[in-house]
């Protein structure tokens, strides 16, 4: 219709040329909203994809696998497995991440590689390199299998480090840095693509030697005969390996890891969820304000005889264009955001859950479409309501110059407040119910309740601010504060958006501090050793490269050592769950751990010999929650020697693992698990001995023979070790930084938009003020005062609302994810900082509109319609 075309030309295009900055800001608001949605989702997908990649690494062609936690399965079991009915292929594999050091290479030491140990003399079906290239790659498989220092490297690694056949490189092994030589370069395929292509392949015997696996493998891969049923074969295998290993589909392992990292994903999901909320809010805020400020224009169109439907059609068409452009801009922006998020969370995922190298995040077509559609829908909805309300208003009223006539209708503050109270009741009920889902919904509803209460609180704060302005500040401040109430709807929307952004940051900060306070108390009380030695990673986590038992004599007989304790920290699989088990010399430990008595939740008082004298264990409260075991109960655990029973002596506070933690004496651990490897040494200094000197001595003894540095060996005093733990915990909260940044951007955009339209609304009024003697400064102060009030109100409401939000987050979501009862500990300094930042940014955002207002030419402002 040419009529509509003309309308669009005169209404919409004019608008863009007349108010380019406003139009741009609105577009930016939509784009950022979409970017938030898409970015967080893509980041989540990438991290999850990395977990999935673990599965590919595991299998490729394997339909089933036989595993046994971190201690591994007996390699002899391969024969038992291979002869089972329905099994076509079976092969043992060793898998270990470790440090690589290329002598003379440009890039520094310390890069991690994934080492795969494969059985070249056994079933070659699972070889981790491109099919058919096996023969070309290895001229002499038998020679390779018998050479404990020969390895194959992935093409990516070879390219990055300039490696070729014959190149030398050093790997951290169970006995320190050892030199290897490259036999050939692999064309990556299947498992060798894992870990970003940074893969080295050894023969299984060489790997067993290098990593002290004596007779064990990490798993046995199983491929099925044609027509064999997975379930039938699995059952047959289970019967054969019962007590010595667990039969799983490879995907199970990935699932387990994904489930295990659920508490971590909680962080990501909360961020995504807030991103969704804030994103939609941002869009709604910018678009609805942009439409509302054109109420008069709508009135004029109606007055000159344009039909209601026509007016609405024009504004909806505009919204569709805006949503489309915003989406087109927001999707790639989301890709960038996702990259930043993944880069910030990858280290901690890798550290605590599994050694992953997440693929660079990628915005799938489906995700792009989803972000696009949500953005478009939010844009259209945001335009629809104010446009409809304007179109239904009497044209004369819409056109009236009197500002009161188009204040955007009354805001039913009381009703909203009552609704907010109801929502709060629902939150209380959900918190009582407990569980991850209830927690998430609860957090969402706290946000909703806070948003609903915002209008009433803004009115209240406005009254207070007005009094203060009247009393202590000049007229300009008072005029600025006056304006807040004139456009309560608009002010409230802005405050709500700012408040939600600030509240999210404050809540996460208090969540972090709650965990930090509890964890640091625990760390201080439960690490009595003076020097701690680990390899591969500082915290004996997923990157640990355990020492061989032969390394123990190197440290024995050191002067100044009162006690030397070899410690093992392993992941066990138990009823499909992963539990971390710490094995150490408990008699010494329980004598020296200062606060261990204070951490007992259940069971008789602790004496030093309780765990050493009999097969007993301590379990953490999350094990109690998950398995329902209590002090005095028996815990039955799978071991390579079959199932073993342990008495649960005590339930204790322990934050070693959010999956569950068991403390056992080294004696019983070795007896049952036949695993002599050492994840770390705890050194207790004799009285008066300087831990630093002890550390230096230990370092020298362990790396003797390692020429040119010893990558991945960590010898730390207990202070340094604890600092390391704290920074590791801090690192898990890195993901929140991105959301804080976004919150600030939201603050900036929201206030700029609101204040620009506030200024546009009052051009004529500003003209009058200037004409009768207001200086430019006074006009600017009025605008800044209004912006600052919006920031202040947001910050205050956010502080209050973050309290219940933190409570739900810590006590419901946190508990559901970790099984830890962590007392609330707010972070007043972070809350103050966020509050100050929001106020500062709001004031800063007011600067642009203030400048615009101050520079208005008086005659033109007076002529403004």
């Amino acid at each position, binding site marked *: 219709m040419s009529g509509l075309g003309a309308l669009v030309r005169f209404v919409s295009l004019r608008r863009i040329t007349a108010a380019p900055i406003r139009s741009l800001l609105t577009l930016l608001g939509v784009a950022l909203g979409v970017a938030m949605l898409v970015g967080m989702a893509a980041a989540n997908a990438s991290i999850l994809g990395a977990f999935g990649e673990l599965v590919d690494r595991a299998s490729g062609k394997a339909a089933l696998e036989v595993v046994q936690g971190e201690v591994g399965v007996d390699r002899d079991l391969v024969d038992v497995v291979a002869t089972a009915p329905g099994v076509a292929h079976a092969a043992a594999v060793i898998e270990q991440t470790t440090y690589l050091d290329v002598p003379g290479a440009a890039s520094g030491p310390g890069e991690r590689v994934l080492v795969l140990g494969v059985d070249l003399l056994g079933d070659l079906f699972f070889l981790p390199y491109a099919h058919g290239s096996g023969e070309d790659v290895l001229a002499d498989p038998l020679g390779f299998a018998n050479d404990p220092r020969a390895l194959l490297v992935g093409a990516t690694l070879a390219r990055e480090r300039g490696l070729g056949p014959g190149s030398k490189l050093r790997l951290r092994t169970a006995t320190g840095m050892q030199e290897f030589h490259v036999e050939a370069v692999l064309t990556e395929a299947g498992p060798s693509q894992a870990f970003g292509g940074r893969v080295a392949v050894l023969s299984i015997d060489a790997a067993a030697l290098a990593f002290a696996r004596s007779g064990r493998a990490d798993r046995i891969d199983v491929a099925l005969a044609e027509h064999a049923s997975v379930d039938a074969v699995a059952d047959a295998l289970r019967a054969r390996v019962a007590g010595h290993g667990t039969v799983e589909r490879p995907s199970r392992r990935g699932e387990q890891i994904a489930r295990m990292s659920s508490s971590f994903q909680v962080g990501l999901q909360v961020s995504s969820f807030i991103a969704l909320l804030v994103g939609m809010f941002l869009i709604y805020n910018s678009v609805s304000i942009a439409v509302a400020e054109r109420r008069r224009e709508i009135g004029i169109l109606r007055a000159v005889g344009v039909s209601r439907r026509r007016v609405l059609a024009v504004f909806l068409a505009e919204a569709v264009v805006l949503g489309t452009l915003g989406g087109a801009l927001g999707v790639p922006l989301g890709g960038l955001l996702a990259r930043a998020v993944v880069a910030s969370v990858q280290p901690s995922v890798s550290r605590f859950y599994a050694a992953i190298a997440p693929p660079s995040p990628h915005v799938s077509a489906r995700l792009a479409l989803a972000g696009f559609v949500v953005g478009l829908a939010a844009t259209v909805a945001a335009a629809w309501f104010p446009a409809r309300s304007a179109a239904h208003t009497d044209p004369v009223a819409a056109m009236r*110059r*009197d*500002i*009161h006539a188009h204040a955007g209708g009354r805001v039913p503050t009381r009703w909203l407040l009552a609704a907010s109270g109801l929502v709060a009741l629902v939150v209380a009920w959900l918190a009582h119910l407990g569980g991850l889902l209830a927690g998430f919904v609860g957090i969402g509803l706290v946000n909703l309740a806070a948003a609903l209460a915002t209008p009433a609180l803004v009115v209240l704060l406005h009254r207070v601010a007005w009094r203060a302005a009247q009393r202590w500040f*000049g*007229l300009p401040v008072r*005029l600025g504060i*006056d*304006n807040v*109430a*004139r456009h309560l709807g608009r002010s409230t929307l802005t405050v709500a958006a700012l408040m939600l952004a600030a509240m999210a940051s404050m809540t996460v900060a208090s969540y972090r501090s709650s965990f930090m306070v509890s964890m640091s108390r625990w760390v201080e009380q439960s690490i009595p050793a003076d020097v701690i030695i680990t390899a591969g990673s500082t915290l004996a986590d997923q990157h640990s490269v355990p020492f061989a038992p032969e390394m123990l004599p190197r440290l024995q007989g050191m002067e100044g050592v009162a006690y030397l304790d070899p410690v093992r920290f392993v992941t066990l699989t138990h009823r499909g769950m992963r539990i971390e088990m710490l094995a150490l010399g408990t008699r010494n430990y329980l004598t020296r751990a200062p606060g261990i008595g204070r951490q007992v939740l259940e069971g008789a008082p602790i004496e030093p010999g309780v765990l050493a004298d009999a097969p007993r264990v301590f379990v953490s409260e999350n094990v109690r929650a998950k398995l329902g075991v209590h002090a005095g109960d028996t815990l039955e655990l799978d071991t390579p020697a079959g199932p073993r029973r342990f008495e649960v002596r005590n339930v204790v506070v322990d934050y070693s693992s959010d999956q569950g933690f068991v403390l056992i004496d080294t004696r019983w651990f070795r007896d049952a698990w036949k695993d002599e490897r050492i994840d770390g040494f705890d050194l207790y200094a004799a009285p008066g001995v300087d831990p630093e000197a002890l550390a230096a001595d230990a370092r020298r003894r362990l790396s003797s023979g390692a020429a040119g540095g010893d990558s991945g060996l960590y010898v730390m005093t207990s202070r340094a070790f604890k600092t390391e733990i704290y920074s590791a915990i801090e690192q898990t909260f890195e993901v929140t930084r991105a959301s804080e940044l976004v919150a600030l951007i939201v603050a900036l955009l929201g206030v700029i938009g609101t204040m620009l339209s506030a200024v546009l609304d009052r051009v*004529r*009024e500003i003209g*009058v*003020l*200037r*004409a*009768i*003697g*207001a*200086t*430019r400064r*006074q006009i600017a102060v009025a605008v800044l005062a209004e912006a600052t009030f919006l920031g202040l109100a947001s910050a205050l409401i956010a502080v209050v609302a973050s309290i219940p939000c933190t409570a739900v987050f810590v006590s419901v979501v946190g508990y559901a994810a970790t099984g830890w009862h962590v007392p609330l500990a707010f972070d007043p300094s972070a809350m103050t900082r966020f509050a100050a930042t929001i106020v500062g940014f709001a004031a800063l955002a007011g600067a642009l509109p203030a400048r615009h207002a101050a520079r208005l*030419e*008086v*005659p*033109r402002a*007076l002529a403004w319609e």
Partner: protein
Amino acid sequence: MDAAPPVVELVEVRKRYGGALDDDAGGTPVEALRGVSLTIPRGQLVAIVGPSGSGKSTLLHLVGALDRPTSGTLRVHGEDLSKLDDDALTRLRRDRIGYVFQFFNLLPTLSALENVMLPALLSGRASPEVRAAALAHLDAVGLGKRAAHRPDQLSGGEMQRVAVARALVLDPPLLLADEPTGNLDTRTGDGVLELLVGARSARRTVVLVTHDPRIAARADRVLTLKDGVVDADSGAAA
């Protein structure tokens, strides 16, 4: 020759809108004033008349120190406005010029009394004396009882009377009004007009832009603008 210097003095004043210096207006430049020279002595009641678009408002804006001429010399209260910066112009407007516009004179969030006090409040002088003076001026325009009311509780005529009270509150020697009765019916307009006419004294000059011939009849001097130039000036003839 009169000993006192003239309140307003224009020499060959031109005002052009649009063109290179004024990109917002765009398109072809408009010459709103094309060489206006005139002198207004103290205590005169001057009516500016002329067809729409002849430059009346433009002239009043210049005299009211709201805008600067494109060329020519403009003196108000003896000060060459081209030599004053924006703050000095603002002070001049606040302290020595009263202004009444056709509509929307008042700030909607302030009470009638606060609106009257506005020039004083803006100069940071919110003393009880100022308050008393403002109340007296409200009384003088017959609205003493409406001091606490907001503009949206006042009629159009009442609003204009508050505007007059405000324009006079700091007792400026120059009062300007641009079609102050243009939005009012005749009777209401007459009341407002009386106030403005009555504001003229030996010390105070009053300049009104109007379409109303009856007002012109009561003025000391009628200045007729046409196409940006003074077409007729009864004062010059007198």
